[in-house]
């Protein structure tokens, strides 16, 4: 199914790209080769609906996505100018018929993204051959469809998709000892004494002082608990529920394989969700520099400014990630250029002095490249969001007021804004849920825990999701959560939903 047949860039765009490529590399951007393809809007939206990959496994949600994109386009509500995917080489798609200034802006923007993909550490473990992997996934799913029937496979894909946010977003970056359930038994015995001995005592008369009975008792208690824990399954809570199900749920081989596909793709897309603000900010920063300093000539600059303003516009009452990222990066550049950081800066409380603060360090550019290397949205905002920036950008927190049934501005207080922003971004705004016990009630039932952090789950969705987990686990499934300020246990046992209060 060759979606895109013509890969030649028209001569004028090729020339434009060579020019922009030169500027970008001169600025220090570095990326895998970029292959541009010019698509008509139908094909562009098709690719967009498929997440940027021309070959995906068949699923109705791509059709839904496409339907909405096309309608958005026809009604003039939304236009996609560009798409770029994290692969090597990078594939980027341009919309046929855009003006040349738009195409140039897009190319400059894409070079920013491509540089970010290559150098940001959160993208380091991603599969750069994902184009091939996606095509292989498609072929595998198609094979299962041919063998087991469309609806059966589709139904299972729906079930798996319902769980695709239950992964451990940080798993690719750290080695979690507790995620390894296989520790050799002899190793463990060596590390864990079989009885409580207390602390080593050199003088016998000191024994009761060093190891008083209460202490020994508490040690004994801990050992019993520890041993009980070892009898638990899993021994430690597991956050990567998808992989847990893959390992332990009773699945057919093809189901196992589909689950793996969904999990692979979820992990592949995770860094993009993790770096939305900083990634878009970085790309916008570079397109604006490349265009205004180099690429746009006097006849184009007004059109560029118009387009750029559209991208980074502050919509009243909303937060535009392009704008937030761009402004924060510029702010960082200025601060490090002027030396507005460190102990002296923090401790200075003379406003006038602060306003005139300029040590002429010129470290801005260097700092920016460092930021793009190490940060994701959470660490980026945590480290660089300042009270001054919040005031300048007129940030505020809002909340739903159930009395008036409106969203209302709550506060312009810096700590609150920061806490809210980080709270919304942490774990991608997804709830933390982990497998606590897969042998609950000693009957092989699955016990999940939602770590409640102030916001309730949407109960109707939670129930449907629970049912989908049951479909895979095939034994009753429980979720401990809090809503309406009460600890509760939701249960689905294959036919009925149950709910009971804990405590």
């Amino acid at each position, binding site marked *: 199914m060759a979606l895109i047949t013509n890969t030649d860039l028209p001569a004028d765009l090729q020339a434009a790209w060579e020019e922009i490529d030169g500027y970008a590399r001169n600025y220090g951007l570095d990326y895998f080769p970029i292959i541009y393809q010019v698509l008509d809007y139908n094909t562009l939206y098709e690719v967009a609906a498929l997440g940027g990959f021309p070959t995906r496994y068949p699923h109705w949600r791509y059709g839904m996505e496409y339907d909405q994109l096309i309608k958005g386009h026809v009604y003039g509500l939304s236009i996609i100018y560009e798409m770029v995917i994290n692969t090597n080489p990078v594939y980027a798609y341009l919309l046929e018929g855009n003006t040349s200034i738009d195409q140039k802006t897009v190319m400059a923007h894409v070079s920013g993204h491509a540089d970010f993909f290559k150098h940001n550490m959160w993208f380091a473990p991603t599969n750069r051959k994902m184009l091939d992997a996606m095509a292989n996934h498609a072929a595998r799913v198609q094979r299962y469809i041919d063998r087991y029937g469309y609806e059966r496979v589709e139904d299972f894909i729906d079930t798996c998709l319902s769980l695709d946010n239950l992964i451990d977003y940080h798993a690719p970056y750290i080695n979690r000892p507790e995620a390894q359930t296989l520790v050799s038994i002899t190793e463990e015995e060596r590390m864990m004494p079989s009885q409580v001995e207390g602390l080593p005592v050199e003088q016998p008369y000191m024994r009761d002082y060093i190891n008083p009975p209460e202490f020994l008792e508490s040690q004994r208690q801990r050992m019993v608990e520890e041993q009980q824990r070892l009898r638990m399954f899993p021994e430690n809570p597991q956050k990567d529920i998808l992989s847990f199900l893959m390992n332990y749920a009773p699945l057919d081989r093809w189901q196992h394989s589909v689950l793996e596909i969904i999990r692979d793709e979820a992990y592949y897309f995770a860094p993009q969700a993790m770096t939305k603000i900083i990634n878009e900010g970085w790309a916008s920063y570079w397109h604006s520099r490349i265009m205004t300093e180099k690429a746009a000539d006097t006849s184009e600059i007004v059109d560029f400014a118009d387009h750029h303003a559209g991208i980074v516009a502050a919509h009243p009452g909303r937060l535009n990630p392009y704008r937030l990222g761009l402004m924060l990066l510029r702010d960082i550049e200025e601060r490090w250029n002027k030396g507005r950081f460190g102990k002296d800066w923090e401790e200075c409380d003379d406003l006038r002095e602060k306003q005139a603060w300029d040590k002429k360090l010129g470290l801005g550019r260097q700092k920016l490249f460092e930021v793009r290397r190490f940060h994701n949205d959470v660490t980026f905002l945590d480290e660089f969001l300042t009270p001054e920036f919040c005031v300048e950008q007129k940030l505020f*927190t809002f909340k739903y007021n159930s009395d008036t049934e409106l969203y209302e501005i709550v506060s312009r207080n810096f700590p609150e804004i920061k806490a809210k922003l980080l709270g919304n971004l942490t774990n991608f705004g997804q709830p933390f849920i982990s497998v606590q016990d897969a042998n609950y009630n000693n009957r092989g039932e699955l016990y999940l825990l939602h770590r409640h952090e102030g916001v309730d789950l949407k109960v109707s969705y939670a129930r449907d999701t629970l049912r989908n987990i049951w479909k895979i686990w095939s034994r009753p499934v429980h979720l401990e959560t809090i809503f309406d300020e009460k600890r509760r246990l939701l249960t689905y046992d294959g036919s009925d939903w149950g709910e009971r209060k804990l405590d």
Partner: protein
Amino acid sequence: MPQRIERDLNRFRQIIRGKIKQDLRKYISHGEMIGRQGKRTVSIPVPQIDIPRFRFGSKGQGGVGQGEGEPGDPLGRGEQQPGAGEAGEEPGEHMLEAEMTIEELAQLLGEELQLPNIQPKGRKNIIAEKDRYTGVARVGPNSLRHFKRSYREALKRQIATGTYDPANPVIVPIHEDMRYRSWKTTEMPESNAVIIYSMDVSGSMGQEQKELVRVTAFWIETWLRYQYKNLEIRYIVHDAAAKEVTQEIFYRIREGGGTKISSAYKLIMRMIEERYPPDEWNIYPFHFSDGDNWGGGDTRECVEILRDKILPQVNLFCYGQVRSLYGSGRFAHDLEENFRDQETLVVSEIADRDDIYDAIKAFLGKGK
């Protein structure tokens, strides 16, 4: 080349279709799509289908926004999902607009209500002729010259005779290369149908009753339009006297006064005589009333007209009795008593919106 996405799109539409079918009773009784109908399509609001995930409810959420305003200022209803990233959305409440052609909708209706296809009554030999330009011929008028084909022929000939030079690709068609579009005349039997709606607009028929009629009429039209190529619709209103009106007036008009149903039946009779010979037309009179007729004498007259004049000529006569503020009269009862075994007369009572579904099933379920 068919698009890759087509398959997913078709599957998506199929799922939506399934949803609509599932909830058809609801759609029928609420007539939600009626106001939105375009020429050949209706657009139907369907709740967005969503893959359930563990996610936050929107209640406690909130987020961070940007712009002017003091604490306490509302952000307005229009900004339902302001703020950063993924937070605060509520996709469960989004609506999709599913577009559907009238044919598809009628098919759904037919499947769901298990409606039999109608066996057209009138003469089958009403023939419509239609010319379609489907073929290509070697002779023809210049105005129908087929440029592409002609040049292709010339190219083929030049390659075959070795006179084609790729370096200088000049193609000169000669007389034998010329191709012309040609037409075929297709004949298709056509079946004509007419719906004659009549409605009681006496004082006892209120807005709500008319709405019931309007929704019922929409579904009847959808089905009959699907069954017949050519459908005409006429409207009659009556109180003590009957007159023909336009569609707009039919649904808007408010009259007072008493009710003489026979006046409407006489008008129906006259219409059929003047314009719709039954051997050429499939005739569907529908009559909606609250059943409160002037008196026994008029009802007797109605029964006579029906028995002698109308019923022998029509495919089906449907009487829908809606319940008005003053309750419903006994006209439905009278009809049922007089035409107990009459195949071509259907009586249905429509007390409220939930009855529309059954009324349509009763009206159209006979396959006449």
